[in-house]
């Protein structure tokens, strides 16, 4: 039998032998090895990479990868109450239709001509977020809320010329780890305590810690623990009286029913857009936003791209481009503000599609239905002996702390019991908040039906009964 010829890899067209030979000839070399002449022998990797052999056919590759993915049990196959910064919201079909378009999915850094659509879509995203936040400046998305908060804090430091940030201690522990790393060693972080009953920021503690070294106070609303902080105005006033800024992290999906932070004195607002039409994707669907007033002293401190609208040589035509490019590291390397690179643009385009679909009424109804469903869940859970929900007495939006302290059962044990009944219980708070031992953070959104919640309640009754 004739020896089988090795097929040309479908992803590498010019490895077809005749083409390869022709190109080598044009270059004037005998083989590809000659093109690597600059790499000294001592640096050449002598061995063969110890990697699994190629799966050449697409059909076999699909079977292989899907075989691995089949080992996962997704939230779609279960009832999940996990939130804590990555949220299960419904993703409209049009969001996926738009973000899987080749034109958007495989574009990158084209000029505002051939990539006019990328510029306009991201400008529209900025604009839609601007309405939601009631602010005139929003960035092209950064990586996620962690980065958005970190950068907001560094911006506050540069704007005030001060080096200490106060942070509410009910912040997401995951986010705090990123902020601490991003600020070290330039900005010092000091934590501000909360009232154990209400969860709200301890204003006395805030007043005692704020000083002429404080660049700002950062808090989240709704907080990581789900409750709403109604003292925003007082907190912002305390910051401003001390020459510091008010920096607020917010879940944008709450803003159909809750006032945006700009209404209670926030100078810089940040948060995450995963919930706005982006799938959870094991934490891969995040994008961070940062927003401020349209004042030069704020705008010039953004590290991100800011796409602006302008005109063209043709009357009535919109053009788009980079606003104040020379503040970025692309423009002036280390002299720029922090750095800019590849962040989460496609999540921004998707969030723009989401907000366009929702409109003002959609967001209002969405916010209301989330509040109703989560209140129902809290009420029903509280009726279970040994369960307190919510733990904090303040009003909540979509997440809340469920305390199993009286039931004297660990969240780990409870969640294992629930898992056997195909329910993903809330995030265990015990490892992160010592005072919240045997407490879990539950998340209820518009996707949870009454029956989902009732099932949870029945399972917990069984578990704790």
């Amino acid at each position: 039998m004739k020896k089988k010829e090795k097929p040309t890899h479908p992803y590498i067209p010019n490895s077809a032998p005749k083409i390869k030979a022709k190109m080598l000839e044009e270059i004037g070399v005998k083989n590809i090895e000659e093109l690597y002449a600059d790499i000294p022998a001592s640096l050449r990797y002598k061995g063969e990479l110890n990697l699994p052999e190629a799966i050449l056919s697409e059909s076999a590759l699909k079977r292989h990868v899907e075989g691995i993915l089949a080992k996962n049990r997704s939230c779609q196959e279960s009832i999940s109450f996990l939130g804590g910064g990555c949220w299960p919201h419904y993703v409209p079909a049009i969001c996926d239709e738009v973000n899987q378009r080749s034109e958007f999915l495989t574009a990158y850094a084209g000029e505002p001509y051939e990539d006019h659509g990328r510029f306009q879509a991201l400008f529209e995203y900025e604009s839609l977020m601007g309405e939601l936040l009631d602010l005139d400046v929003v960035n092209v998305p950064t990586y996620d809320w962690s980065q958005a908060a970190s950068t907001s804090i560094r911006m506050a430091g540069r704007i005030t010329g001060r080096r200490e940030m106060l942070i509410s201690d009910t912040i997401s522990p995951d986010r705090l780890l990123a902020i601490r790393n991003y600020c070290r060693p330039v900005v010092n972080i000091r934590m501000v305590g909360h009232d154990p009953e209400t969860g709200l920021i301890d204003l006395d503690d805030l007043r005692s810690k704020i000083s002429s070294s404080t660049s700002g106070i950062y808090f989240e609303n709704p907080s990581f623990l789900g409750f709403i902080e109604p003292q925003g105005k007082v907190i912002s006033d305390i910051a401003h009286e001390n020459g510091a800024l008010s920096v607020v992290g917010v879940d944008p999906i709450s803003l159909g029913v809750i006032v945006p932070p700009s209404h209670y004195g926030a100078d810089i607002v940040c948060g995450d857009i995963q919930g706005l039409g982006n799938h959870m994707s094991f934490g891969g669907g995040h994008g961070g936003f940062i927003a401020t007033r349209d004042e030069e002293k704020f705008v010039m401190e953004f590290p991100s791209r800011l796409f602006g609208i302008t005109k063209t040589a043709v009357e009535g035509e919109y053009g788009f481009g980079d606003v104040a490019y020379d503040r970025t590291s692309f423009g002036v390397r280390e002299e720029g503000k922090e750095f800019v690179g590849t962040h989460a643009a496609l999540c921004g385009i998707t969030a723009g599609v989401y907000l366009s679909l929702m409109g003002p009424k959609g967001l209002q109804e969405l916010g209301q239905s989330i509040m109703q469903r989560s209140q129902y869940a809290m009420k029903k859970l509280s009726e279970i002996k040994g369960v307190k929900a919510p733990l904090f007495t303040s009003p909540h939006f979509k997440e809340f702390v469920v305390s199993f302290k009286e039931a004297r059962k660990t969240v780990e044990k409870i969640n294992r019991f629930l898992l056997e009944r195909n329910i993903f219980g809330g995030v265990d708070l015990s490892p992160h908040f010592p005072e919240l031992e045997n407490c879990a953070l539950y998340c209820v959104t518009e996707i949870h039906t009454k029956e989902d919640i009732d099932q949870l309640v029945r399972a917990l009754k069984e578990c704790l009964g």
Partner: protein
Amino acid sequence: MGKEKEPKVRNFHQAKWDEPVIFELDTDGERGILIPEVEKEIEECVGDGVSALPENMRREKPPALPEVGQMRVLKHYLRLSQHCLGADLNVDLGQGTCTMKYSPKVHEEFVRSPKSAELHPSQDESTVQGALEIIYKLDTFLREISGMDSFSLQPGGGSHAILAMASIIHAYHDLKGEADQRDEIITTIFSHPSDAAAAAVKGYKIITLYQNEDGLPEVEALKKAVSERTAGLLITNPEDTGIFNPRIEEFTKIVHEAGGLCGYDQANANGILGITRAREADFDLCFFNLHKTFSSPHGCGGPATGALGVTEELKDFLPVPVVDHDGKKYFLNYNLAHTIGKVRSFHGVFPAFLRAYAWVRSLGPEGLKEAAHIAVLNNNYILKKVKELRGASAPYAKGRHRIEQVRYSWEELTKDTGVTTEDVTFRMADFGFHLWSSHHPFVVPQPFTIEPTESYSKEEIDEYLTGLRKIVEEAYENPEKVKNAPYRSVVHKIDNSTLDDPKKWAITWRAYLKKHKQRE
């Protein structure tokens, strides 16, 4: 082999819908999507829900979002997509340093499967063994490709990985009590701007080495730059010129002897897969952009991944968690003694991991090397052809080959005709192409950077070159034609004068209305 066709530029015109801004589609009362109705029993139990809000927290006036019906929203965004040329449509050679290779479509089926899209990052480990397996195995692949000992996939892009490298360098010296003393990071002008900028975020003073006539930084300059203040070196190789620094081992040695660590920016490693590794050049840290070398699509600029690798000595500094295997199952390991904490929330951008995993599996060890070979072949073919263009040149390393890309110059073209790089890039849009200038500062005058990767066929490459040739001809015959371009793109010459003026810039539609349309 089919008959060779005479390459020519297309009679192209990009879609031009004259599409309004979404707010202009606002029609009172239209709805794009409805929310699931709350069950009657829930409403009876809790009432309207929003009354629970304290009065001062209630949003009485809804956000002024547009009201648009569903099909119109779809149409609007599809039209915008047609105003955009992704690598799937463009012959995307012109975005040098960015490795605009083919992103296999079958990967999109994997990332869109609910088995990956509907996973929550805090799920019980037993329910995400498949996801953890992907992460763990990709980590082992990347170890093999780099020679490093452990990877974190958490950073959300190349610049983010540089930040993580700088953070580890800082933590390492801090542990030794030398963080205050070692306050300088050395980089080179042809390394990515973020090698300087992201390190500066960590408070470092940046020392930038410039190129010699070969386009490379001098060993002697490095020797002068290092001292007891040196924290580390962050460097690309081959640099953005596509020239490989053959003395890189001396660089890492000098920095190590001065007590610093060496971080290898391998955002783009496409020309050297299986050819040379971070390990052999004695680097302590490196990173690969999964959205460049490893095929994850660029998504208009993310989400993405800068996979960060380190030697055994630095493993305990990685961000948490990393994925480990105990012989039976995969698990998340938060137990790293000196961890810098986190750089991105949760585990990073899982869809990018999944695509990179599938890409490596679809190529295998031989295929990876072949991808590198052909990327280098394509690049040197283009180098030969661009050098033949009147007015174009390839500064530095005369007579030598390049690795995966070349930074070229239109200096002569500009001198001869007044046509600049920028003019050429805009004219390229008329043929359905993209050409990028280069990162600032423009050390190479009138620069442009081409990186063909392994993905484009010779015929496509020839078509692209024909576009360049045509513009050169125009520049010498009728420079105004080039300078007033584009003509066949979505829009015409953009007026940038408002974009740097605080009184006129408009970053949102509402700001535009206030500043330019005098909304009351």
